[in-house]
């Protein structure tokens, strides 16, 4: 199956779960400071393993970065326009 993962298209096994997508994006085992949205909705970590994916799903895997009031001068990544729906 093909899903959109952090803005890119990736191929995953047909039985893949949200946990597989998080790993594919590079989430560490501990998943500390990591959050996942499936089609724009937050999915709690405890449900990643049991949440199946379907072809065409949009997954965002986010992690903590250094942040001040607002990031400046491209020192860190440019502000995203939020989580796509």
């Amino acid at each position, binding site marked *: 199956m093909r899903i959109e993962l952090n803005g890119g298209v990736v191929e995953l096994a047909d039985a893949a779960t949200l946990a597989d997508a998080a790993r594919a*994006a590079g*989430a560490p085992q501990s998943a500390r400071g990591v959050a*996942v949205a499936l089609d*724009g909705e937050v999915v709690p970590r405890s449900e990643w393993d049991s949440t199946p994916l379907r072809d065409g799903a949009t997954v965002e*895997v986010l992690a903590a970065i250094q942040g*001040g*009031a*607002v990031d400046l001068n491209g020192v860190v990544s440019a502000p*995203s326009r*939020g989580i796509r729906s």
Partner: protein
Amino acid sequence: MTLGRSDAQWTLGDREWSSRLIAGTGGFRSLEQMEEALAAAGTEIVTVALRRIDPSAGGSVLDVIDRLGLFVLPNTAGCYTARDAVRTAKLAREAFQTDWIKLEVIGDDRTLFPDAVELATAAEQLVADGFTVLPYTNDDPILARRLEAVGCAAVMPLGSPIGSGAGIRNPYNIAIIAERAAVPVILDAGIGTASDAALAMELGCSAVLAASAIFGAAEPTTMARALRAAVESGHLARAAGRIPQRTYAEPSTAYEGIPDLS
């Protein structure tokens, strides 16, 4: 008003804090520089942002924060609508296992001023969802009152635009906000140097947030120390009760007993 030991602590949300300086974590040249500056600032609360994960990123800001024993305050930096801000807050709650959120809803990427309408909408929704909401807001006493009325745990007015280092452009409004608020007022943006931080506290703020003032200084760790001292000084001066400002002199030495030396 006396500044006893109990006054050294202040309450934000449901917790007691000792430090009145909150720091941003962005912009430092390295995690090592950030760690040294945050330690020097004596801060207890630091802000972090959420972005798409970068597997190639070396080291984690969270490792440093954990090592220093600091409280993570996630923000919604980069959000332009209430909808995006609420979603980002929910992601942050999941990522950091905290109900606290520094709510930023930006209206314009040149000024980075808050969008008052979207901000108030997002604040109301997040409070209803159980968040401890700390909104970055304009120096507008009425908006501050509205944010407090919907249940925000603090209000965080800007002194001047984020990253401008222009200090507090409207000290009268900051003083009005601080005087009328029943929740802590935290001066959020515009701090450029120590005197700005001291002024914020003298105007009645409970705390100051500094980000670019620290990481952008030629010597971030030294500036962190300076801001720490300034926040403490300003808080003490506020508690001490300053003398009124006058146009003309007011002698501090009695006139009686002046000898005639002519």
